[in-house]
């Protein structure tokens, strides 16, 4: 597992209060991890802080799974 994946999962566990085992790369934030749209706004903010990236609204809307988040961050972090 990449370093990015580890850090993303840690943030998801902390923010959504879900068990770490449930946070697989395929997991959907809304369907599998119980997030609502505001939780996703908050997660995106946390990713931006953690990785020093900017995630524009149109990109954020496309982040549905844990893997989507990891891929975006890996492609855009400095």
């Amino acid at each position, binding site marked *: 597992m990449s370093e990015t994946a580890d850090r993303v999962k840690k943030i998801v566990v902390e*923010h*959504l*209060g879900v068990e770490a085992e449930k946070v697989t790369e395929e997991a959907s934030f809304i369907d599998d991890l119980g997030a609502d749209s505001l939780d996703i*706004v*908050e997660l995106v*903010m946390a990713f931006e*802080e953690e990785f020093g990236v900017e995630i524009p609204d149109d990109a954020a809307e496309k982040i549905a799974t844990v893997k989507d988040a990891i891929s975006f961050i890996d492609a855009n972090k400095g």
Partner: protein
Amino acid sequence: MISNGPPRPSRVGGLLLYEIKKGKRMRRVVVTGLGLVTPLGSSVETTWKNILAGKSGAGTITRFDATDYACRIACEVKPADHEYGFDPNLRVDHKVQRQVDPFIIYGIDAAGQAIEDAGLLDMSEETRFRAGVSIGSGIGGLPGIASESIVLHEKGPKRVSPHFVHGRLINLVSGQVSIKYGLMGPNHAVVTACSTGAHSIGDAARMIAMDDADIMLAGGAEATICPLGIAGFAQARALSTNFNDSPERASRPYDKDRDGFVMGEGAGVVVLEEYEHAKARGAKIYAEVIGYGLSGDAYHVTAPHPEGSGAFRSMQMAMKKSGLALEDIDYINAHGTSTPMGDELELGAVRRLFGNNLDTMSMSSTKSAIGHLLGGAGAVESIFCILALRDQIVPPTLNLDNPSDSCIGVDLVPYKAKERKVKAVLNNSFGFGGTNASLVMRAI
């Protein structure tokens, strides 16, 4: 099918709370569940045991470094690892804990305790259509407003939490409780400063009496022991500042050396229920809410009316509604915040209303032990009144070393709890803005 609720009872016995019109008696309201989070415990029985033992919840502020503050003491709810600390994980989801201010966490937990105590965890959908919430707060999410404003200032608008607003709003205790327990009746929240808790119970009792609901969770929650809260109340000259080195002595209602209140935090919630509804399901009934009075001082934003006029009329209205005689009241849980002016004005109003009946009554201020819970106070103190009815014992006023001259001859229950007959009780709560509430309850 959506229930329209049971038909109005055509015949109910005993003393009744209100009358809509002459000859038409209204529904009776009883208390069937209790929940408390206080500086002396995170359950009803723990808090009550500590109150009766004469313990104090006061200490040096630990939430932040208050070294430079005029007031450096408060009655904090203790952490989970403390002997009588509070564990938020018992009843509040992890995600909710992260999103909301502490007053909402305390309120959800106290509401959960009350529902469990009332045996109402498994209500049918039909019952839940007729079950509502009325849990208020005096100030709401001040700690979160303060901290998020720093985020805005330092990091800009894109870093403000999407949960900022609904995690701080006062009516979000009621909102969260309604969602968590599926309560679809009235979803209400009172904001009347330090009389919030009493108004919440009184308003909710009326909703049941007026047939808007059969069950109401009612009470108040507060958590403002934060830099802005302590600084603000200290600047208003409302807090005690002479006892920073001996915090347990600082809240001393009716004592000559009192110099302001000690801030507390926590929540109190009761389950109110229509009498026939409670009886039909064999519920444990703690007490009946028989009188509710409200008034305004129309005088000053922080100072009480110099003749205690608002306090007097609030108590008078509650007594009139109760149908009791003045001599029937055995115990008053006073507002008694330990401020130089407030305590004696309240006592003066009590003396004018009750006259010689005061000789056989007991009156104490439990703020001497848990501090002033602001919007939570009226609800927490109503619960102490209910427990006094249950256990035939009245809680003490701590630190009453030298009672003010005006207190001579009044049983303020100094230092030690006192066993005595308690058949009917009065609770007073008064708030900034000149708002007053009084509740009368009796054993059933």
